[in-house]
């Protein structure tokens, strides 16, 4: 479904991602792991078209590497960005409403908002409250819900557990597990490798802008020494 070929990302003249390749099959959950500054978010941004990059990004048999960000979203790519970035002065309901911006089926979208309110009663309770007043975990749930309101073909999750308490992190991963079970294609970017490896069907390890290893959970865990130094996974 998503084929990234020979992708490099530049900030000005500085190259931060070096010619990487990876593939995400429909219905699978792929994780992109690595330490801070490895180029994970830059990779996500290049899929979204918010940074300068070279190489091709093929999504649903279409090369999207030259088209505008907004058009890529319309093709069915959704993002729950790092740091959550809820619209803090907008109400919870309005956040979800904006999330369905590209939808044509207004009524169905409205029903989905109700469904989300059933999944997260706390969001329903606070639906007219501004999103900035939610706790970090609630904001993360809102961000994921907002991204799914666009009815995406693929969901990009950038560091969903960042800065959350362990209990909340657990809930977030449970949610991702559920989404996966529903058959939603997911690209998960994480520093919390233990959890991410459990979830993902296939993983890529990124360091200094290069893919240094890839495989399923067992294959990655075999390369134990490399792994523990990079991501802190215990054997």
């Amino acid at each position, binding site marked *: 479904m998503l084929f990234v070929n020979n992708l490099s990302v530049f900030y000005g003249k500085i190259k931060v991602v070096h010619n990487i390749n990876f593939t995400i099959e429909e219905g699978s959950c792929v994780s992109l792991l690595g330490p801070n500054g490895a180029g994970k978010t830059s990779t996500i941004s290049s899929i979204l078209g918010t940074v300068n990059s070279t190489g091709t990004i093929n999504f649903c048999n279409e090369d999207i590497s030259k088209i505008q960000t907004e058009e890529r*979203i319309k093709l069915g790519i959704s993002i729950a960005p790092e740091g959550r970035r809820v619209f803090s002065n*907008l109400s919870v309901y*309005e956040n979800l*409403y904006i999330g369905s911006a*590209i939808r044509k089926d207004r009524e169905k979208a409205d029903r989905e908002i109700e469904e989300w309110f059933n999944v997260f009663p706390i969001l329903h309770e606070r639906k007219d409250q501004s999103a*900035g007043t939610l706790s970090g975990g609630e904001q993360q749930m809102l961000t994921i819900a907002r991204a799914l309101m666009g009815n995406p073909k693929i969901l990009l999750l950038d560091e969903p557990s960042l800065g959350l308490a362990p209990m909340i992190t657990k809930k977030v991963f449970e949610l991702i597990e559920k989404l996966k079970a529903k058959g939603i294609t997911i690209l998960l970017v994480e520093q919390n490798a233990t959890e991410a490896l459990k979830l993902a069907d296939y993983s890529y390890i990124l360091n200094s802008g290069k893919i240094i290893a890839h495989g399923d959970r067992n294959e990655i865990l075999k390369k134990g020494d490399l792994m523990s130094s990079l991501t802190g996974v215990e054997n």
Partner: protein
Amino acid sequence: MIDYVVQQTLNALSFGAEYALIALGLAIVFSIMGLVNFAHGEVIAIGGYSMMVMAAIAFKNPIIIIVGAIFAAVIMAIFLERIAFRPVRYADATTGLLTAFGVSLILQNLFLLLVSPRPIAVTSMYFLDWPIKLGTIRISSLQIFETLATLLAILLLVLFLKRSFLGIAMRAASLDFEMVRLMGIRANRVIATAFAISGLLAGIAAIFIIARRGAVDPTLGFNPVLKAFVACVVGGFGSLPGAVLGGFLLGALEVGMLVILPQSYGGMKDAFVFAVIAIILVWRPEGILSPQKEKGDKI
């Protein structure tokens, strides 16, 4: 004495209404794309010139002239965004500000070159202005219209921002423009809407300015925008409630200065008003109601 207070309050309201209208137009564009649109005054002037043209080609119906002037201002605002401000959309605030200065300079001189450096009479809005006597209070109908029109415009704008999809998107964009694009909403659409609204407000302002002055000249909008600019900053740049508050505050301040200052200092009104503004800014450098800015550091 009470009469005097009421009278001056009404004066302050109508002054303030005009500034609030223009300041809102500046603030809505600034809140979305961080552009200080100094060329807003020339959008007002276009409204004025379009009335001149319509009067010249024998449109007598005031509704047509009013709608036409507002339409002209909206088109002008959208046009300016397209040709001048889109290239500097993601540039820093200084670049945007200076670009807007340049655009303002070009337009003012174009009016001068193509029309006339002198004021040209436009009397088609005089019908809005007749004296009203309430007991001993004497006011002009124009003041009432202006205050009401401004309040109505603010009300409609609030409704638009709260209820409509584009309105909500615009509020979202003022917090995190890129995130709005990441929701699949076209940046061009949001920004064009912001400019259209600012043009609409400028057009309404133009009608009242022309109704009061009865003439249009190349600098028609320059001084009002200068004041509205100040109103925005005092209220908190980019905050829409701040723009309205700043506008009315400025109106009150101006009328207050006219009341307090002795006759011979009347010409110095602006100097005192600006001095008070400078002091307010020292007290609150970000303005009275500065908007919250929350943006992610990455992407």
